[in-house]
């Protein structure tokens, strides 16, 4: 592993998953996926729309337009997270306990219950890899990972990226498969920290670290661009 930081590794790993996405949308409060989208933009010329951004090149025509664009098939990739994510890629943004008077109430589903169906490549990102966040079964399905065959669903979960690993999601099997382990971590650690069962090939490679060019893009163009929507992140991560 070269001297890239864990966040930079995740940015690079997500960026590698975005290679064929021409239009990537990014929600609020997603600095690491947002940075990955900007990396894809710098490397492949992807168009990036950042919800809520006021920067002309990233902003959308408003929320309605962005959801409509996803409905039209004009958004290729998006990111979702969850207070809980389970092995069937169900996500929970609503809370823990029995609905509606939950023990812990989170913000709510936002656009997930729609975009998870419409966007072909939804990458799940979670900054904490633990049995608390990656659970056997979510308490509340804000948006389901898989749907019955007759449900119109051009989109869905594609991969899960955490501080420990990258997993790919099989929409037919409805299960995750471990794809790569971040350098410095182990399969045992991942099994230990994951609340759900997942598939695992015999030989799981290390997650590729960003090469020199990618790292300088991340620390250069990407850092400068992410500073507008996420000044605090850019300051902390890249010192700008």
């Amino acid at each position, binding site marked *: 592993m070269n001297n890239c930081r864990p966040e930079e590794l995740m940015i690079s790993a997500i960026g590698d998953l975005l290679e064929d996405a021409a239009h990537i949308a990014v929600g609020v409060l997603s600095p690491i996926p947002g940075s990955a989208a900007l990396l894809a933009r710098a490397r492949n010329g992807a168009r990036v729309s950042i919800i809520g951004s006021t920067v002309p090149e990233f902003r959308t025509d*408003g929320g309605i337009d962005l959801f409509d664009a996803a409905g039209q098939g004009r958004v290729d990739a998006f990111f979702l997270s969850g207070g809980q994510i389970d092995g069937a890629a169900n996500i929970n943004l609503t809370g823990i306990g029995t609905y509606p008077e939950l023990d812990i109430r989170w913000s709510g589903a936002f656009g997930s219950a729609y975009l998870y169906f419409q966007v072909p490549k939804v990458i799940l990102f979670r900054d904490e890899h633990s049995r608390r966040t990656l659970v056997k079964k979510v308490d509340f399905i804000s948006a389901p990972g898989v749907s019955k065959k007759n449900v119109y669903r051009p989109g869905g979960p594609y991969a899960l990226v955490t501080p420990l690993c990258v997993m790919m999601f099989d929409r037919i099997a409805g299960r995750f498969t471990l794809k790569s382990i971040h350098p410095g971590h182990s399969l045992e650690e991942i099994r230990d920290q994951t609340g759900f069962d997942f598939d695992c090939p015999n030989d799981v490679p290390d997650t590729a670290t960003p090469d020199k060019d990618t790292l300088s893009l991340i620390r250069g163009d990407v850092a400068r661009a992410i500073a507008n929507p996420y000044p605090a992140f850019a300051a902390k991560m890249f010192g700008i």
Partner: protein
Amino acid sequence: MPETNFFTDVDALAAAIPDGTKLAIFKDSGVPMAAAKALVRRQAKGLHLVTIPTAGMIVDMLIGAGCVDIVETSGVSLGEFGPAREFANAVKAGKVKIMDSTCPAIYSGLQAAEKGVPFMPMRGLIGSDILKNRDDYAVIDNPLAKDDPIVVVPAIRPDIALIHVALADRFGNLWIGRQTELKVMAHAAKGTFATAEKIIDTNIMEDERLASASIPSLYVNGIAPAPRGAWPLEMPGQYDVDRDEMENYAKLSGSGDGFQTWITDRVFAKSVAAE
């Protein structure tokens, strides 16, 4: 058609929003913070808030102050300033009825009301617990295809859309800039009340640069002046978010006495609204 009322200030405007009003509030700038504080001051009760499609501090504050019976939302959060704890506490305590939704379902409901149709079909939602808990949503068979289940959401027709704009005129027209969702809100609601940073004497509709991004007086029932009316939130091109004030709210809210102190200091001590 409304003859647009011109209120002297936000308190006069808030006095014209009855208890129990189904009130639509937009997530982004301009957030009508000054008007919402006036609702708290007049101790409004039983509001049914519809957030378009999500909300932050404004809804958290109205809930914490006991003004709200129902909140229909796709998400409430203070964003980078943290969770909306008054909202979360009230939901957990069963003090407000929550109608959880997802952003495009709220937009679709508004657009149904805008078009005068009773429902709108939308993709997604099937298999979610959001759908399972919304008795007013339904899954139907697409009538123009086979074996294609699809959700229909009912029209959302707020009594009042409460918005904050940069510019209004003496004829009752509002300039909204790029925030086209405000137009959908005004169309969907029975009436629209607006606070404005500035009220001008010339007609917005006669200025081509402004007219293409405006809401005509046909939809506007009331306007009140509110300079810095989104504070402590930002008003694009005019002022930025007041981070200290937001952090102070994030710290004090959700903590009982702290929130009461904040309300006393920042809402009832009226002068701060114009800081």
